[in-house]
């Protein structure tokens, strides 16, 4: 069971209170009407899916209900840091 620190509640809580929401820091194309099919498909479906460090979004669904970001290792599952939306990670991800 993962033990996750919510940066808004400022507490560690059990995994059961959270939901994983996929890769973090994906920017929606600024001008959707003028993106190519390739750009739009990449935005919708293609993910880094790294074997190693990953930046991902989680939501504290049964707590404050806020979204935040996590840097986590996808093999050991170790969580290196959590940080608020809009903030930047201190640890790089494996591409």
């Amino acid at each position, binding site marked *: *069971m*993962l033990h996750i620190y919510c940066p808004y509640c400022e507490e560690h809580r059990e*995994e*059961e209170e959270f*939901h*994983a929401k*996929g890769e973090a820091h994906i920017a929606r194309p600024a001008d959707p009407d003028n993106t190519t*099919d*390739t750009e*739009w*498909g*990449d935005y*919708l*479906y*293609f*993910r*880094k*899916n*790294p*074997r190693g460090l*990953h930046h*991902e979004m989680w939501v504290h669904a049964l707590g404050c209900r806020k979204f935040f970001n996590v840097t*986590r290792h*996808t*093999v*050991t*599952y170790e969580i290196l840091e959590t940080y608020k939306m809009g903030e930047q990670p201190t640890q790089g991800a494996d*591409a």
Partner: protein
Amino acid sequence: MQRYSGFGLVKHALDHHENWQRIWRNPKPKDHYDVIIVGGGGHGLATAYYLAKEHGITNVAVIEKGFLGGGNTGRNTTIVRSNYLWDEAAHLYEHAMKLWEGLSQDLNYNVMFSQRGVLNLGHNLQDMRDIQRRVNANRLNGIDSEVLDTQGVQEIVPHMDCSPNTRYPVLGASWQPRAGVARHDAVAWGFARAADAMGVDLIQQTEVVDLIVEDGGIVGVETKQHGTIKAGKVGCVVAGNSGVLAKMGGFRLPLESHPLQALVSEPIKPILDTVVMSNAVHGYVSQSDKGDLVIGAGIDGYNGYGQRGSYPTIEHTLQAIVELFPIFSRVRMNRQWGGIVDTCPDACPILSKTPVENLFFNCGWGTGGFKATPGSGHVFAASLAKGEMHPLAAPFSIDRFHTGALVDEHGAAGVAH
């Protein structure tokens, strides 16, 4: 290859079963192969088998980083069915089903394919409407499929709680009588043995660490244990690690890798002679020939390559099973494990060419590819042999994530299995 038969069994009994031939060789890799298959799971081994058998291409190696069938093939809960909604998927899975029906004879290896039927339960009116739609679609595609009401379900599974007092009453089910289960290890071993007999080299304990690309085309693979091995064509069939291999080739796939867990109970006397699945309470169960209940449910929500998952997922799975079968509440669980499944946005596989010439991928089977093993190998082998995707594989190209022609099977894929 020594053929297996009842007579052979008697003959070997006379010398105390000490003279059975090893079921495959353990060759040193050659410098060059016509085709290299990366990944020795069921799909990779089936591909090699059909390459040799149907296309006469025998200068083939299957390169596996661990042992044959040690990935998802040996970790899955072995449900086989073909009642998918959309034509593209239904045709592919039904193609596999037809091959399953003759597979033990074809391989001269008992894969213990048991057509004990599969029930997909409906617990509310919308479930039942979706089931009716899917069953009608199946029938138009020539796939055996029926809608059952509560009583029909209760007759097939007398021990299930079908009373109206449950929290999620069973209103009915779709029923595919030709569906069932097979023995996962035997499928890997049967394909491996038959492929080896035709000259395919099975190279175990050898990890591919790079794909060698020259002038936009694949020329070989770099391995950790045996250095460079050259190839005319390469097919990657590595399930949860597909993204890692794609990165070596310099492109991305629309896949995410997740842990998927399963459990088996202590062996008990025969109590369940079919397969029960429920999307709504989210769990499924069958009973193996050894007597253990084989149980599974959903993926862990986060990305993971760790071949293990979280306890909450196990708890939810067992809650679902006990909801359906209160009688199982005191059965003890024996073992639990996880595999890494490569989930695709439309719950359908990817069988495709790639941006690298002569490099092909067969992946994205996610939580439900065991059932497709022979069909997947069959059409992928044809695609590798001809250099053009087989008609049944063509709708599953990577391009669909840019053209928008997805094949949305989330309904039929349902509970992850």
